[in-house]
Every structure is written in C-alpha cells, then in structure tokens.
C-alpha cells in the first residue's frame, strides 16, 4: 500500500468536507448535509477492497467519503449537492441520495441494511464471488429492521459485510445513555455473526481487519460484521454546534486522528506536498462545479 496515496485520499475527503461545510455556512448550498470529518479511514480502506463494477456498496446519510472514493470524482458529489446535472444523481438526490454503478445511498437511518441483505441474496444466487457491503452508524443499530437484517444475514448465510462506524453518538445522543453498552459486540454476537472490532486511528489495523472480512465473505459466501470505533470532528449536520461532545473526547481523537498516523509514516515535505496538491484539487473541483 502506498502511504502517500492513502494520505492523499484521506486528506481529499477531509478538505472537501471542510469546503462543503464552509459553503453551507456561507449559505451558498441548499438543503442539508452530513459530513464525515474524522471518519475518512473506512472509505479509503474500502476504495482498495471493493470493485464497484461487480461488488455492491450501500450506505446512508453520512457517505460523502464513500461517494468520493467510489467515483474518484469529487465533482460528482459536490455537483450533486449543488444540484448540477453532472451530479451523482443528476441533482435529484443531494447529499444523501446518490448512486454510482453498484453504489447506492439513502437518507433513512439503517434502511440500506435490509436492502443490502437482498442484494447479497441475489449475489449468492448469481454464483460469483461478488459481495454486498453496507456501512451504517451506531444510531442504526437500534432500528428494528437492522436487527432483523442481522438475523436474516445469518439465517440465509448471505455474502455481506456489515460495517458499523461507531462514532459514539446517534446525532447528539451518546450511545451509552440509550444502550446497555458503548460497543455492540454482545448484540452482534447474539446473532451468531463473526464479529471484529477495530479503532479507526491505525489505518494498517483497520485495513487488514476489513481486508480479512472482505476475503472471508468473498470465499465463504457468509456474513461478517466489523465494528469500527471512530469519531466525528464535525457536527451531525450543517446546523449542529456539537455542544454534546466533551472536550476530552475531541482531545483524545485529535491525538488518534486517522490522518495523523498515516502522515507520521511520511516525511514532512511529502505531507506538505500532498496537502498542497489536495488544496489545489479541492479548489479546482469547486470552480468546475461553479462554472458547469
């Protein structure tokens, strides 16, 4: 794996998200948005593991990172949010409802989990090694049909990878105040699903955990569940001031920022160069979207 490329991808997501937040705060964009600042690692890892021509990938409202990684064209995401015809859903979907080849997102919390189970059912009967992956948050872990889907995945032995990005908060509500625990290991194991947990700060760990899970689903044609413990440095949506997040938690995650550990493997000059390239790219993307 090329660490420069990993950092470049992570940084592209972060700087694009910051640009999107800034455009919203200036009142230049319509609607709402859910950024993934701090949660860049999973989309970047999946960009190396999923072949969107044959595999399927689904997610929910917080999917800008995945959208940019799957298309490789941030213009298609920003253009979509700006309502442009070249956007991922031709301007019909905005931030939450986009698609590209076998990649689909929707705005209902957890709703793509049963949909992905159905896709996995189809892929199993196709007889190929393609897999269905679905990425969702800790809030979704309390939607009834998500829990139904965990059972369905196991009951029908579906080739699906379930990735829970646990950022500690369902919007503003801390996990532990509405659940008996702050990670979902016991619940997932209760469905007899293979469960793996990894923290998002160490990209190599995260990547190998996801890689093993992807390979297991591909070859065994049965489900795997990965819980990624992560953190969101931005608000849930554009108007959220994050009053519910204690400073100590932010401090911890600034120390454990997924970008930081990748950057530490590179020279300061390399990091600077990547930063400059990404800044330039973000500005090009914005100008393209403005002028087309």
């Amino acid at each position: 794996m090329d660490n420069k490329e990993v950092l470049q991808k992570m940084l592209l997501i972060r700087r694009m998200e910051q640009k999107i937040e800034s455009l919203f705060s200036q009142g230049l964009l319509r609607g709402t948005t859910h950024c993934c600042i701090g949660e860049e690692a999973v989309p970047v890892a999946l960009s190396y593991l999923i072949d969107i021509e044959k595999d399927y990938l689904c997610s929910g409202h917080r999917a800008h990172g995945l959208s940019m990684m799957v298309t490789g064209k941030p213009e298609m995401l920003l253009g979509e949010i700006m309502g442009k015809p070249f956007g991922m859903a031709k301007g019909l979907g905005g931030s939450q409802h986009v698609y590209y080849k076998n990649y689909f997102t929707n705005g209902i919390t957890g709703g793509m989990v049963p949909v992905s189970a159905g896709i996995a059912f189809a892929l199993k009967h196709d007889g190929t090694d393609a897999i269905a992956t679905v990425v969702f948050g800790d809030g979704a872990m309390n939607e009834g049909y998500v829990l139904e889907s965990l059972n369905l995945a196991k009951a029908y032995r579906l080739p699906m990878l379930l990735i829970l990005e646990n950022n500690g908060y369902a919007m503003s509500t801390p996990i532990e105040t509405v659940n008996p625990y702050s990670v979902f290991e016991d619940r997932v194991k209760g469905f007899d699903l293979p469960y793996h947990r990894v923290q998002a700060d160490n990209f190599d760990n995260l990547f190998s955990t996801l890689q093993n899970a992807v390979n297991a689903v591909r070859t065994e044609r049965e489900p795997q569940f990965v819980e990624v413990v992560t953190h969101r440095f931005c608000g849930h949506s554009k108007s959220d001031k994050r009053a519910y997040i204690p400073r100590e938690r932010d401090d911890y995650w600034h120390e454990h920022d997924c970008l930081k550990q990748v950057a530490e493997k590179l020279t300061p000059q390399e990091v600077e160069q990547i930063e400059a390239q990404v800044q330039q790219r973000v500005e090009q993307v914005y100008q393209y979207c403005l002028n087309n």
Partner: protein
Amino acid sequence: MNTYKESLIDGLNTLLADPKVFLLGEDVEEPYGGAYTITKGMSTRFPGKVLNTPMSEQGFTGMGVGMALAGYKPIIEIMFGDFSTLIMDQILNHASKFVEGFEKELHLVVRDPMGGYRGYGATHSQSLEKLFVGLPHIAVISPSVLHEPGELLVKAMNLGVPVIFAENKLDYTRKMFRAEKIAETFEIKYHGGDLPIAEAGFPDETPELTLISYGGLIHPLLQMMYDLYMEEEVAVRLLDISSLSPMDFDLIHSLVENDNKVFTVEEGHIPFGIGDGIISHLAQRGMKCRFRSIGASQHIIGTSREAEALALPQIDDIKKLILKSVESDG
C-alpha cells in the same frame, strides 16, 4: 382458470419458472404452503426458490427491494394486508425512491391479502390499499373475480415499479365470475390496456346507476346487481378497476361522463378513501352527477357479526341505498 385461487397459483407457477423470481414470506414452504395454501407444493416444485422467512416483514421486504435492485424479481408475501403497515418504509422510502432517484426498474411484487367479513377482528380484516395509492412509483393492483389474478400478477411483475398486489382473502374461495351460473345474464366488457377496467352490465339495458369498485367486493356486488335486476327490474352497472394506482381517471371519466348517478364502493375506511379520490377527479373534470362514496365507517373492525357490520359496508345496505336513489331520483 375456473377459480380465483387456481388463477393465482397458475400466475405464481409461471413467474417462478423464471430463474430470477423468488418468493419470500412467512410459512410459505411445505408442508404449510402459506396461510391460505396458495403456495402449497411450490417449495417442492421450485426447490430453493420459495422460502420461509422469520417474522420480520420490514426486513424481508427490504431484502426484496435489494434483490430487485440487483436485477432479481422477488415476490414478497405478506400474510395479512394489515401487516403491510410494517413494510411502508421499505416500499415508500426505499423502493419507490430508487425508481426515479437511481433510474432503476425494480421488479418487485408484494402480495398483500386484504379484506374482512370473516370475524378476524381489527388487525386481520382491514383493506389498506388507500395507504399506498397516489404515491409516485408505487403501483397498487387489485385482482377480482373479473380480473384474473394470475394474469395480473405476471403483468404486475413487469411494471418495473414496486407493486402492492392487493388480493382479497374471501376471493380465495370463489370462482371466477364467468364460471358462475348468473354470469350468462351479464355482459362483461374490458376497457383500457394491460390493466383494464371491467364493465359489468346487462345487455340492451341503460343502467340507472353506475357502481365503481374493486377487489373482494366485486363478487357480492355482482350478485346484488343480479338480484336487483331480477327482483326489482333495476339495471345497475359496475366498473371494476384493476389498477388502483396509477389510476386511469381519463378512462373512468369517459365511461361515466353521461351518467347521473355514480356510487363508489370499497371495504376500506372512508372518508379519504379510493372512491373519494375518484369522485374528486370526476368533479374536477366538471362532471355534474349524484355522487356517493361507500366504505367502512369510522370504527375498528370488531370480531362479532354485529361489530363487523357496524364497520364494514353491508351489501343489503348498499342495495337499499341504490333502490332509494333510483326511486327518488336523488
């Protein structure tokens, strides 16, 4: 096919021969074969294609949506139409959005048995078609003893949008109308395309009133029309709509524009029912007419005969309303 059930089974067998078609639902496999034994034998005939589900209507309907998104053609069986409240999110907030938002044809049929008059009570007797009509990219199709359920089922699967296929539980026990003895007295015509409107009337008679209805009430309404004609010499005609949504209001208007009495009849609750929507469209087209919508009253559907009769429209009452209207010219 002579019976509604035979026709439905024939349609399912036709669909299941397609390698992309699967049927998922509660208790559909052998030896049970579904709550109404519609799928009896099918899990043996089509191994691996007719599958029992856990009691997770939202989850397995969502699976159906995903299967359709991946190019498969799932049939989802909901045991009682009442339980289709549970699937609304997957049908409305997922499947219907994908049709336009993702530019995807979705081949997905939800078999959804509606209807009461069996003493099954408030949560096993409702007709909830009205919850699904009028919404973009959701079709609501209703077979009857005039509309072959098997043929409609195959057509429904080809529509490319999620379909609520509103069967009626009492119809499972009935003959198709043309196999009934009284059928020869009637003249039946079909108007429109693949999902037509059936017109039932009496040859060489000008009807005094037009009924518009669908589904499980068609059978008893035809019997009532026969009785009115034979006993009272009152000729009524009936329009039986097979596609409740989208609905061909232009065709309905063209069929009734010269009428002066139009009553709609449904098992579902009114106001804000299917018939109210039809009457609204006819009125908006400037039609001047004695309109009346008949449906379930604002009560839950109780289990006792009396309680059920308080809620569900009763054929004798409809007959009296028609006679009164015809006699008083009001």
